[in-house]
C-alpha cells in the first residue's frame, strides 16, 4: 500500500520535471535565446545608459534654453556658469591631489599586502576595505569629528577648536580615506600574480630592489594601476555624501548639483551634470583605449640614489610611513565616530549636560529620532534588497552574455559600457534618472521610493555585473559543453551545470550591490522626494547639528557595513578555495 501511496507523488514530480525540461528546451531555441539577448541588452541600455544619453541629448537639443539660463540669465547674467566653473575647478583640483595621496599610500600598502607575510595581515587587509564599504556620509562625518571639532585630534594639543576647519583640506582628507582602497585593490592581485623570476632576474642583472620595483614590477601592473587611479579620481570627483559634511562653504560640483536640485534649478543642474558626465566618460575612454600605449618615463636610472632608496633602513622607513599615513589619515579618522559616540553617550563630555548626550537626543527628546532612524533604516534595507534582487536578475544574463562573447572588439566595447555607471558621479547619474523618468522627461515616476530604486539599480549595475563576469570567465567551458553533448538543452545546462559553480560569485555580487545601495547619498538625495534613507538622514542630522544622534546613526551604518564586508570576505575566500 505504501508503494501505491507514493506513486502519484512520483508522477507529479516527473511531470513537473519534464515540463520544466520542455520549457527549458523551448527557451534554448535559437530565436528565443536571441530575443533573450536583445532583452538583456535593452534593459541595460534603458535602465543604465538611457538616462545618461537622454541627458546628453537634451542638453544638445535644448541648447538655446540652456544658453539663456546658464549664460544670459536676466538677473544673474552668467553667474551660474561662473559658479559651475568654480565648483568644477575645485572638484578637479581636489580629485587630482587626492589621487596623488592615493598613489602614495595605496601602492606601498598593496605591495605590503601582496608580498609580506606577517601576523595580522588578514586584519590589515580588512581594514583597507572598510572605508570602501562604509557609507561616505558616515565616513565624512567621522572624519569631520576627528579633524574638524574639538573632540578629536585637537585634544592632543589641548586646543578648543578643531585642527582642520571645513574646506578644501578636509575634503581632501575625507576623499583620500575612501578612494585609496581603489588603488590598492586594483594592483594588489596583479602584484601577487607577477612572475617573481622577472624580479629575481633584474636583481641578478645588478638592479637594487627599488629600481626593480620601479622598472619591472610597476610597468607590469600599469594597466591595473591606471584603472584604479581613474576609479579613485572619478570617485573623488563625484562624491557627495562625505563632501556635503566636510565642505562647508566650499562647494564641489556634486554638492552644487544637490543644492541646485533642492532649489529646482533644473536647466542649470542639467548642464552641470552634463559637464561632469562628459569629463568622467572622457577619462574612462582614455584609460580603456590608451592605457596600454601610455609609456611611463621610467627608463632613466639614478644608480646611486636608487641604491640608497633600496637600503634596508630606507625601506623600513618607507613602509612605516605608509602604514602610519594609513592609520592617521584613514583608519583612525574613519572610525573615530565610535569613540565620539561613547564620549557623548549620556551627556556632553565638556559640560556634562545630559540633554546634549546621545541617549537623550535619540531616545528621550520629543522629536523621537529613534523612530526616524528606524524608519530610514528600514527604507534603506528595503531599497537595497529590491535593488539587489532586480540587479541579479538583469545582470546575470548580461554577465553570461559578455563572458561568452566571441567578438573581441564587441566584448571590449561592452566592457567599457558596463563601466560607465562606475565612473559617473552618482549625483549626476541620479539627476539624469530624475531627468528621464520624472516630470521633465517621460513623467512615469516622481521623486520617491520607486525613483530611488531605479537610480540605485542603475549605479550598482556595474558592481553586480563585474564580479559575475569574473565568475563566468573562471568556469571551464568543457563542463557545459559536456552537458550539452549529453543531450541537455542550453538553458538546462546553464541551470544544472553553470549556476552551481556561480553560487559564491552571485553571493559576492549580491553583497557588493547591497552594500553600495545601502551607502549611497548623492543619487538618493536627488531622487528621494520626502523619503529618507539612513545615509541621507545622517546628513540631515549633521545639518541640524545634532551630532550625537548623527554619531549613533553612523555607528549603526559602520557596523552594518563591517558585517557585510566580513560576509563578503568569507564568501570570496570560499570561492577561491573552490
Amino acid at each position, binding site marked *: 500500500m505504501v508503494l501505491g501511496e507514493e506513486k502519484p507523488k512520483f508522477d507529479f514530480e516527473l511531470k513537473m520535471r519534464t515540463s520544466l525540461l520542455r520549457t527549458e528546451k523551448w527557451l534554448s531555441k535559437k530565436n528565443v535565446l536571441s530575443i533573450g539577448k536583445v532583452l538583456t541588452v535593452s534593459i541595460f541600455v534603458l535602465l543604465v545608459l538611457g538616462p545618461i544619453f537622454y541627458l546628453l541629448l537634451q542638453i544638445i537639443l535644448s541648447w538655446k534654453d540652456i544658453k539663456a539660463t546658464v549664460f544670459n540669465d536676466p538677473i544673474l547674467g552668467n553667474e551660474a556658469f561662473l559658479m559651475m566653473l568654480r565648483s568644477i575647478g575645485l572638484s578637479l583640483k581636489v580629485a587630482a591631489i587626492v589621487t596623488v595621496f592615493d598613489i602614495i599610500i595605496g601602492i606601498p600598502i598593496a605591495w605590503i599586502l601582496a608580498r609580506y607575510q606577517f601576523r595580522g595581515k588578514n586584519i590589515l587587509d580588512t581594514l583597507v576595505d572598510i572605508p570602501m564599504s562604509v557609507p561616505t556620509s558616515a565616513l565624512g562625518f567621522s572624519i569631520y569629528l576627528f579633524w574638524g571639532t574639538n573632540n578629536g585630534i585637537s585634544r592632543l594639543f589641548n586646543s578648543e577648536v578643531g585642527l582642520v576647519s571645513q574646506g578644501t583640506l578636509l575634503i581632501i582628507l575625507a576623499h583620500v580615506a575612501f578612494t585609496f582602497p581603489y588603488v590598492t585593490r586594483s594592483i594588489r592581485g596583479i602584484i601577487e600574480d607577477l*612572475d617573481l623570476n*622577472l624580479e*629575481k*632576474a633584474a636583481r641578478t642583472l645588478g638592479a637594487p630592489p627599488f*629600481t626593480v620595483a620601479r622598472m619591472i614590477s610597476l610597468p607590469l601592473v600599469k594597466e591595473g594601476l591606471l584603472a584604479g587611479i581613474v576609479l579613485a579620481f572619478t570617485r573623488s570627483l563625484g562624491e557627495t555624501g562625505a563632501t556635503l559634511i566636510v565642505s562647508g562653504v566650499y562647494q564641489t560640483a556634486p554638492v552644487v548639483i544637490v543644492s541646485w536640485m533642492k532649489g529646482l534649478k533644473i536647466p542649470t543642474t542639467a548642464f552641470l551634470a552634463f559637464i561632469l558626465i562628459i569629463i568622467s566618460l572622457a577619462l574612462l575612454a582614455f584609460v580603456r583605449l590608451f592605457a596600454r600605449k601610455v609609456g611611463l618615463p621610467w627608463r632613466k636610472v639614478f644608480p646611486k640614489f636608487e641604491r640608497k632608496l633600496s637600503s634596508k633602513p630606507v625601506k623600513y622607513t618607507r613602509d612605516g610611513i605608509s602604514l602610519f599615513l594609513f592609520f592617521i589619515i584613514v583608519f583612525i579618522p574613519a572610525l573615530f565616530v565610535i569613540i565620539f559616540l561613547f564620549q557623548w553617550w549620556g551627556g556632553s563630555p565638556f559640560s556634562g549636560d545630559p540633554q546634549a548626550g546621545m541617549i537623550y537626543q535619540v531616545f528621550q527628546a520629543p522629536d523621537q529620532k529613534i523612530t526616524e532612524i528606524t524608519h530610514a533604516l528600514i527604507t534603506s534595507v528595503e531599497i537595497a534588497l529590491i535593488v539587489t534582487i532586480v540587479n541579479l536578475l538583469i545582470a546575470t544574463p548580461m554577465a553570461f552574455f559578455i563572458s561568452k562573447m566571441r567578438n573581441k572588439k564587441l566584448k571590449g566595447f561592452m566592457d567599457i559600457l558596463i563601466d560607465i555607471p562606475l565612473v559617473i558621479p552618482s549625483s549626476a547619474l541620479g539627476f539624469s534618472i530624475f531627468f528621464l523618468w520624472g516630470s521633465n522627461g517621460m513623467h512615469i515616476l516622481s521623486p520617491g521610493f520607486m525613483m530611488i530604486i531605479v537610480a540605485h539599480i542603475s549605479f550598482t549595475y556595474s558592481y553586480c555585473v563585474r564580479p559575475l563576469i569574473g565568475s563566468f570567465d573562471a568556469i571551464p567551458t568543457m563542463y557545459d559543453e559536456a552537458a550539452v553533448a549529453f543531450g541537455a538543452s542550453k538553458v538546462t545546462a546553464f541551470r544544472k551545470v553553470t549556476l552551481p559553480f556561480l553560487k559564491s560569485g552571485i553571493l559576492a555580487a549580491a553583497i557588493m550591490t547591497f552594500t553600495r545601495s545601502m551607502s549611497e547619498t548623492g543619487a538618493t538625495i536627488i531622487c528621494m522626494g520626502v523619503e529618507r534613507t539612513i545615509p541621507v538622514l545622517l546628513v540631515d542630522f549633521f545639518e541640524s547639528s545634532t551630532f550625537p544622534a548623527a554619531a549613533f546613526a553612523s555607528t549603526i551604518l559602520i557596523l552594518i557595513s563591517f558585517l557585510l564586508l566580513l560576509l563578503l570576505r568569507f564568501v570570496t575566500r570560499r570561492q577561491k578555495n573552490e
Partner: protein
Amino acid sequence: MSDIRFQHVTKVFGKKVEAVKDLSFIIKDGEYVSLIGPSGCGKTTTLRLLAGTILPTEGQIFFDDKPMEDVRIQDRNIGFVFQHFAIFPHMTVRENIGYSPTVRGKSKNEIEHQVESALKSVQLSDKADLYPLSLSAPDWQKTALARVLASEARILLLDEPLGALDQKIREEFQVFLRNLVKKEKLTAVHVTHDQAEALTISDKVAVMNKGKLIQLGSPSDLVYNPNHIFTSFFVGESDFLIGIVVDDKQKEAEVKIGQSVIRTHNTGISKGKRVAVAVRREFFQIEKIINGKQLDNSIKGTIIEDQFLGILRRVRILLENQQIIEAKIHAKHPIYFEEKEPVRIRIDPTASRCFEYPKDGIASALEM
C-alpha cells in the same frame, strides 16, 4: 678569475627542512659544471645560494676567496638564466639586453657597445627591436643569454635553461651554450634533470642526493669510476649484483655471486664483506652456452624475455642467485634469445665496481 668555493654550507628552510647539508666543493675558473640529482636533492637550492636569493643557514660561500655573506644579489656579478627565461615582457629585446648596463649607470656609448656585441654573440641582431611576445622560445633563450653577457657577469647560473625547448632545439642549444660559455671564458653552473644533457655539455658533473654532494667529477668519471653506489644508480642505468668478497687485492676484488666468482674493480673493500657489484646495463655481455664451455668472468642465468625497444633490445635475465637483471643490447645484435634459454653473462672487470652492501638494504642507499 672566478673560482667558486662552498665551505660547509647548510641551508635549512623553515625549522626542519634541510635542503642542503654540509656542502663543500670548489668550481674552478672557466669550468662548466652541471648539477644533477633527483628532484628535491638540493641542486636548485645550491644555485639560489650562489645567486644570493637565499642565504646559507651555516657555512660560507666564496667567490675568489671573497666571502659572499654580505654581498647582495645585485652586487654579486652573476648572470642567472631561468627555465622560463624571465624576459621582461614590456621591453624590447634590445632594452632587455641593455637592462644591466643601464641600471649599473653605464654611459650611453658603453651600453650600446655592450648590447651590440651581446646581440652578435647570440646572433639576434635582426630581432633586436622586437618585443618578446612576438618571438619564439629559442629567441627568448638567446635574449636571456645575451642579457647575461651584456651584464659582464663572470659566473653564469643556469636553472634548467633548456627545459622549455623542444628536444631537437635542445640538442642544438647544448652545443651552442657550451661554445658560448667557452668563448666568453665564463664559469658556468648548470642545473638540469636531464643527465644526458649534463654529460654532453659539462666539464664536470656534480651528483647530489638529499642535500648532499655525492660525487663531483668529469662525465667519464661518473660513468666509469662512480665512487658511490648512488652515482652508478643515478647516472645511466645499472644493476646491482649481490655477493660476498672472497679475495681482495688493491684494485681488484673477487666476488662470489651464486656459484660463480667474478673479478671486479674494487673500492677498498676487504674479504668476507657483503657487496653490491654495480654493472651498467649496456655493459652486460650475454652469450649462449655452447658445449658447457666456461666463459671467463661470467655468471649463469636464464632468459626471461628479449624485448625490442627501437634502437636497443632489453633482455631480462634471472641469475643463478635468483636476482633479475636487465641487459641493454643493440637491436642489431646477431643473436636472439629464447624464453627460458640458459645463458652466461660476462662482466667486464674494468666496467664494474663493487660497493659495500648498505646496512639497511640496497634500497636505502638508492632512496631519492
